[in-house]
């Protein structure tokens, strides 16, 4: 029969540092068996198993604990040790199962946005953006530097959250839930700010249209746009995709298909600046990067040497 209480209600011994460290390592496999039904459930259970085995010496209690820890679970893969520490401290105190479940579910949600803001929006753009440019200029140290930065941050976060949250136990969840709303809002502000910055920083789409005024004078349309505000086209395209995704529920795949069409139609008419990489027999690249099918304007002739 399902029971809300463990058989053995005597609090177990505190988990030792070695077991906690083992679980820090195991937390890397949170998504090993990710699936659409329970998401990270089996990986979550796998991660905390060394602790559960030590806490529940009674086999029925271990089965009960494994059972409820195999329910739907989904949180941020890099911050999961925070929840692990709290849940393990509750398991160790032999709290009743509904409480453990409630705490687990309450904690898993807010961490998602925070983790995305910290890792995918801050750490990766900074580490990868900086090292990708090193790689493009042929610096072989770039991938190593990326791995070092990313993994040092990752493991420090995993380690500290695990040990601290286990130590603070249920207090940690109090501190967190007390400020959860404000914390989530602040993390969102940082995230939104960074996204706005990325649109400008990584927006590389430009026009190549030029208007021939005769006598070697041209109006470069891109320069006119830059006079209004630089990076206007990336801003407009992002807003357009945002509108499609938000208001019309477009899938990423559909948006990408649309952008491929926009890209190809644009180069068909010679609107976008782009490089085909095609070279002729003498190794010279095509003026303007490519030859549009419809040619309705003259490119400025590059100054002769």
């Amino acid at each position, binding site marked *: 029969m399902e029971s809300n209480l463990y058989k053995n209600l005597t609090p177990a011994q505190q988990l030792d540092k070695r077991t906690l460290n083992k679980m820090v390592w195991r937390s890397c496999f949170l998504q090993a*068996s990710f*699936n659409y039904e329970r*998401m990270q459930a089996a990986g979550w259970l796998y991660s905390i198993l060394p602790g559960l085995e030590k806490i529940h010496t009674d086999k029925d209690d271990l089965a009960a604990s*494994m059972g409820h820890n195999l329910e739907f679970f989904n949180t941020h893969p890099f911050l999961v040790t925070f929840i692990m520490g709290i849940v393990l401290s509750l398991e160790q105190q032999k709290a009743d199962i509904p409480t453990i479940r409630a705490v687990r579910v309450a904690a898993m949600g807010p961490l998602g946005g925070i983790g995305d803001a910290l890792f995918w929006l801050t750490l990766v753009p*900074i580490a990868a953006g900086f090292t990708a440019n090193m790689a493009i200029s042929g610096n072989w140290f770039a991938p190593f530097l990326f791995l070092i930065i990313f993994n040092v941050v990752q493991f420090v976060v995993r380690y500290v959250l695990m040990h601290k949250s286990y130590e603070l136990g249920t207090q940690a969840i109090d501190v967190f839930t007390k400020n959860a709303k404000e914390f989530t809002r602040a993390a969102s502000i940082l995230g939104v700010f960074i*996204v706005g910055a990325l649109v400008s920083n990584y927006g590389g789409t430009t026009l190549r249209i030029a208007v021939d005024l005769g006598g070697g004078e041209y109006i470069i349309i891109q320069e006119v746009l830059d006079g209004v505000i630089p990076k206007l086209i990336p801003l407009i395209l992002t807003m357009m995709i945002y509108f499609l*995704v938000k208001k019309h529920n477009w899938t990423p795949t559909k948006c990408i298909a649309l952008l491929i069409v926009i890209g190809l139609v644009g*180069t068909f008419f010679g609107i976008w600046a782009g490089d*085909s990489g095609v070279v002729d027999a003498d190794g010279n690249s095509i003026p303007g990067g490519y030859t549009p099918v419809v040619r309705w304007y003259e490119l400025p002739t590059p100054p002769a040497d």
Partner: protein
Amino acid sequence: MSFNVMQYILVFIVTFIVAIDQFSFLQSLYQPIVVGPVVGAILGDMNTGLIVGGTYQLITIGSMPIGGAQPPNAVIGGIMATVFAIAQNTVPAAAVGMAVPFALLGQYAVTTTFTIMSPLMSKADQYAAKADVKGITKINYISMGILGTLFGVVVMVAMAAGVASSDAIINFAANNSWVMAGLAVAGVMMRYVGFAILMKIMLSGELWGFYFMGFAFATILGAVKSLQGPALLILAMIGLAIAIYDFQTNTRMRDLTSGGGDDDGI
């Protein structure tokens, strides 16, 4: 250019490992900046692999697995971009464009795996009921094995097909340079999808101002050549300052209005 059996086997092994790494383990080995030079080294041109990896990395920055959404797959996209750049000698940006269909294929491989893995959960429930610790471990290993194998097979097929058609692709590219340029342009545009999805998840109405503030600060910094490297770090500092200020203001206001703050002492 054709590849030998050994190269196929090594690429399969690398794919197997990084396919698992994209969700488990270090979750960083799979990034194109790492995979590019490794695959490049296997195929005999590490330098091209490095450059393609860096180029593809910049594109994937916008399309991270945020909020559980699956972006076009960086693992298969990165590997195939490297294969194309080396086998067909195309510029990195165009190779990245050619890899896009394969990245989408990889996205399907991921969603398929996540679907076929669901029935395994009833098996896991049985193990849990028996307190079978080894059984849970086994489930995880089986799942990782399925994912790695599926990705390996997709890359093998794509590599063989991509190399077999390389001459045809080169001729096609010379006669239709607008297509290659269009793919490269679209490749750059794809990051806007990633940005838009981030905005959908995080951008509630009251936060629009912060979005444009980030855009404005980045545009200012973008005009300063010497700051192009540290630009994002500087921006993160500005953003962090704003976020911390907002957090402090809101928690203080909440404490005041709820009659708290009795520990303030003044």
